[in-house]
């Protein structure tokens, strides 16, 4: 225990040595806290703090990465080595006697590559290179987590043989991984710290379950705390967040992270207690004393559990990408992922599995088990049918096995374990990979199988091969896209369809469904927070995939958008302003007045001119302020004409801005000088009934009973007693209804809802040019009696109706600009269209040229 582990070769050296006597790597990182990992934690001292300091030193924010070429800081890796969970280090052991494994100084000599472990099943031994090489490939991934670790390790020990190199990656990766357990456990341990009273040894399994639920709550609280920044997508340095949580878990600031400390505090120690019962090891005594030492202690009791490399290497491998994702997801995902790492390692089907975080749930089970160890032993001895293990539990159940074994080393379980774990683990690798990168692999396979051996493995175990029941829940959960894709059967044509459409995106077909539609979403199992983790998985696969086929670059596809062309905009803007402005400034008429006499306009004119004087007329202002320019220009001749008849006006609108527009029209000289000249007084010559809410319903309500629907004027007086509305009770009492609208929909609403109620009174419309095709048919069908369309219609009306004052109306003033501006616009469109057609045609040719 007094020895120091070499961070590189893992062999033990005397503490006084500065450098490893075997590999020469630096042993003592520049921080004092290094030995704490290997030394038993004394009561009182607080390794957690030291660890945090270590973590902060080796913060893995992209900035801090040792990038290829840079000299790596020994400190970082050395420091992390000290934080490396002991149980992970025990991975390197072959199948050794369970008793010694937890003592670090036993580790060194067996610390050679897993792949070379004699007892690992052939599958696992030959997909070992895959995931490791996968990591190696990930080195060129954009977001570099592993790569840099690999870099730093590589450069620290230049002459590393590939074989050792693989084994070296593991500590490195596990270090990164150990961050996320660190978080969860720290929180968890924080409650221990905050709870003065010692744990009650006779805590029952139920207690553990409560603890499980309780700890869920604090996971929740973590999630909810960090949910907001996550949703906002505020870029936060993930590790910082992680560490903050982590630190906040320390006794000092533990309150905020603990929804209900007391419950937890009594439950969790109980759990530890059970651990103690199971593992009659001295090391665990200190472990309970200061449970604060979460990070170092968790690994320790895990090291009790994980006995054979095959056992623990499996979670190690599976959750590897999760950890990587943890390194970069924010606090919320971080905590979620922490939980999910554990839960993912232990798929517990059924309700309890949903209630208890994975890393807690085995313990009740064990506790029950330990109450009658014999039966438990039997259970393990009579090798359960593989299927049971397969569907029930993932890799982690080996914890149980490990516990059993560590309790009774002579037990025959190891063989049993390897028997059904070997295939189990191999299946899980297969599952993990095939599920992360399912379709695009099988798609890519024809071209790329030769390039990557890993295809060989991932291929057979595509989700199709695996029945859902066979998949551990965490594996299912690791496949958001899969769970999306789940039920879509990939019929040949769908397959072809996708490949044909996504040329450069071929690589994305694991992310994208390979059938019309994205597949029916199967409701994922309880811990769907794992989906967050799978984001990391996808980046991981994406990295791998990019390396597999360098020509498939989704980014490229994304960027293949039209670049908007500023110059064109400026040219258009300049020319249009010129064309519109000059005629207005010069004021020399260049365009002959409109000679058109559209029948709908003429009939509108005749209706207005036949209106009796002092007749009540309803004018509906249903246009946006945006189109006030056009509508005012179009309507002003008609309104001038109307006002010559001296009607009583009622104004209403179904848009909140309508009333203000109505007021403006009546009073603002810029709309219609003539109308403004009348200086209409509210309540005397006109009534502004204001805003009619409710869209068609409101219109219908108003059409059916105007007096109820619009009782008050804009300024709050009861409307229907005012002189302008004398004798008006129903809609048909109005001599005419004139609708000014820019929107075909609101025009149709008035026609359909109010048309039947106006009786013999005519309904006229002044519409924006854009609404013509939809509104005009109603003129043909006789539902509206007259129509003025846009500026041109207004101009035509203006030509028919000669103003008393010879002042030119708006339309006359706009007319020249209108004709010149439109002409310029037409020329621009023609020229530009031809230009871009040629350009597009060229681009198409180039593309086809590249393809050939």
């Amino acid at each position, binding site marked *: 225990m007094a020895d120091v582990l070499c961070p590189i070769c893992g062999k033990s050296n005397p503490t006084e040595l500065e450098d490893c006597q075997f590999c020469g790597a630096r042993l003592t990182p520049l921080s004092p806290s290094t030995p704490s990992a290997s030394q038993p934690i004394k009561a009182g001292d607080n390794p957690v703090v030291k660890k945090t300091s270590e973590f902060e030193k080796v913060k893995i924010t992209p900035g801090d990465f040792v990038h290829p070429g840079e000299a790596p800081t020994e400190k970082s890796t050395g420091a992390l080595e000290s934080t490396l969970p002991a149980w992970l280090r025990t991975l390197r052991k072959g199948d050794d006697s369970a008793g010694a494994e937890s003592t670090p100084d036993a580790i060194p000599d067996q610390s050679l590559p897993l792949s070379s472990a004699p007892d690992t099943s052939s599958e696992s031994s030959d997909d070992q290179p895959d995931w490791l090489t996968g990591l190696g490939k990930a080195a060129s991934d954009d977001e570099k987590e592993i790569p840099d670790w690999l870099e730093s390790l590589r450069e620290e020990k230049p002459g590393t043989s590939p074989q050792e190199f693989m084994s070296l990656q593991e500590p490195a990766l596990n270090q990164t991984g150990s961050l996320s357990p660190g978080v969860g456990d720290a929180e968890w341990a924080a409650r221990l710290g905050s709870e003065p009273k010692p744990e009650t040894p006779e805590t029952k399994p139920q207690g553990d379950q409560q603890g499980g639920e309780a700890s869920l709550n604090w996971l929740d609280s973590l999630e909810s705390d960090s949910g907001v920044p996550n949703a906002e997508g505020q870029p936060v340095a993930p590790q910082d967040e992680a560490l903050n949580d982590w630190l906040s878990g320390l006794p000092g600031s533990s309150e905020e992270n603990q929804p209900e400390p007391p419950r937890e505090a009594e439950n969790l120690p109980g759990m530890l207690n059970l651990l103690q019962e199971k593992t009659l090891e001295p090391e665990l005594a200190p472990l309970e004393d200061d449970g604060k030492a979460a990070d170092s202690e968790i690994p320790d009791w895990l090291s009790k559990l994980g006995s054979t490399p095959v056992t623990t290497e499996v979670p190690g491998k599976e959750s590897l990408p999760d950890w990587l994702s943890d390194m970069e997801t924010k606090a919320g995902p971080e905590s979620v992922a922490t939980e999910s790492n554990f839960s993912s390692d232990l798929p517990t089907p059924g309700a309890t599995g949903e209630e208890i975080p994975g890393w807690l749930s085995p313990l009740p089970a064990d506790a029950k088990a330990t109450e009658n160890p014999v039966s438990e032993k039997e259970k393990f001895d009579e090798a359960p049918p593989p299927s049971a293990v397969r569907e029930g539990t993932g890799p982690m159940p080996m914890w149980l096995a490990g516990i059993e074994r560590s309790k009774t080393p002579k037990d025959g379980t190891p063989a049993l374990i390897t028997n059904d774990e070997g295939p189990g683990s191999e299946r899980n690798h297969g599952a993990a990979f095939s599920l992360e990168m399912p379709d695009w692999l099988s798609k890519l396979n024809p071209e790329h199988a030769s390039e990557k051996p890993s295809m060989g493995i991932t291929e057979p175990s595509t989700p199709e091969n695996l029945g859902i029941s066979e998949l551990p829940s965490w594996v299912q959960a690791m496949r958001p896209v899969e769970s999306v894709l789940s039920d879509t059967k990939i019929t040949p044509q769908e397959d072809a*369809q996708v490949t044909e459409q996504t040329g450069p995106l071929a690589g994305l077909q694991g992310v994208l469904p390979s059938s019309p539609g994205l597949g029916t979403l199967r409701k994922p199992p309880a811990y769907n927070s794992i989906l967050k983790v799978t984001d990391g998985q996808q980046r991981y696969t994406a990295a791998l995939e990019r390396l597999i086929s360098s020509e498939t670059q989704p980014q490229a596809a994304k960027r293949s958008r039209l670049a908007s062309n500023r110059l064109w905009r400026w040219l258009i803007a300049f020319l249009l302003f010129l064309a519109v402005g000059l005629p207005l400034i010069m004021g020399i008429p260049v365009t002959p007045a409109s000679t058109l006499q559209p029948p709908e306009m003429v009939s509108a004119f005749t209706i207005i001119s036949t209106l009796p004087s002092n007749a009540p007329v309803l004018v509906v202002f249903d246009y946006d302020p945006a189109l006030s320019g056009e509508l005012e220009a179009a309507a002003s001749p008609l309104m001038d004409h109307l006002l010559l008849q001296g009607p009583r006006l009622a104004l209403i609108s179904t848009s909140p801005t309508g009333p203000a527009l109505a007021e403006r029209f009546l009073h603002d000289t810029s709309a219609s000088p003539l109308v403004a000249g009348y200086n209409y007084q509210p309540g005397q010559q006109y009534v502004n009934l204001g805003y009619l809410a409710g869209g068609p319903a409101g219109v219908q309500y108003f059409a059916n009973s105007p007096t109820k629907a619009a009782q008050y004027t804009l300024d709050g007086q009861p409307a229907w007693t005012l002189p302008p509305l004398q004798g008006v009770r129903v809609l048909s009492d109005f001599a005419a209804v004139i609708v000014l609208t820019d929107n075909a929909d609101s025009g149709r609403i008035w026609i359909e809802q109010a048309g039947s109620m106006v009786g013999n009174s005519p309904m006229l419309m002044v519409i924006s040019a854009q609404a013509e095709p939809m509104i005009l048919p109603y003129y043909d069908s006789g539902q509206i009696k007259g129509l003025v369309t846009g500026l041109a219609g207004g101009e035509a009306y203006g030509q028919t109706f000669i103003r008393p004052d010879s002042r030119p109306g708006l339309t006359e003033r706009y007319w020249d*600009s209108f004709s010149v501006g439109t002409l310029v616009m037409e020329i621009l469109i023609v020229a530009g269209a031809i230009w871009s057609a040629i350009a597009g045609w060229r681009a198409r040719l180039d593309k086809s040229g590249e393809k050939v």
Partner: protein
Amino acid sequence: MPAIQSANVVDLFTGGISFLLTLMVLSYLIGDNPAFRIAIYLFIGVSSGYVAAVTWHQVLYPRLVVPMLSGSLAERLLLIIPLVLGLLLLLKLSPRTAHLGTPPMAFLVGVGAAVAIGGAVMGTLFPQSRAAMSGLDLSGAGQYWLERLSEGIVMLVGTVTALVYFHFGAKATAGGPQRGKLVSVLSWVGQVFIAVTFGVLFAGVVVAAMTALIERVNFMITFLSSL
């Protein structure tokens, strides 16, 4: 508004602000810039505040407050329901109580869906199909019957084919989902009609926008000349 037309100073003031805002917005043509942003955010704030005020004055006050204060007993009783629903809806303001605001939203959605259905069937499906049927109505066409007939036929073909174009069903074939021969041909014709329709509408929008541009330029010129 009297306030506006009364004093020239006021006119100048409002005109100046309007002119400035117009310039700021039009500066978007050069590219997104702070001036544009300022105008936009000011505009969003003002318009939202305006709509909120109008909603109070024109909807809540006359439809809820006044009847509650001075309505008949029946009216008041009837208005208790929307009042309660509205208060529940206000619980949406706090995330903690938000789920209590679900019933009123459900009510709105239900009513909205019904209005949509009713409007679609009674407001569009029947009137439009009836109008499409009457396309071949030659009564009163007189000697223009041929013209009317041809127009009617074109209309009928256009309507039907455009409708066919949207047909979703297809057969799974090796080359992806394929629609039947007849449907494909008809839908191509329909596409032409749709393109023409959009062309016409687009031209209408362009004309409207052009008019708006003219109005703005005219406004700026008149303001400058009034200085």
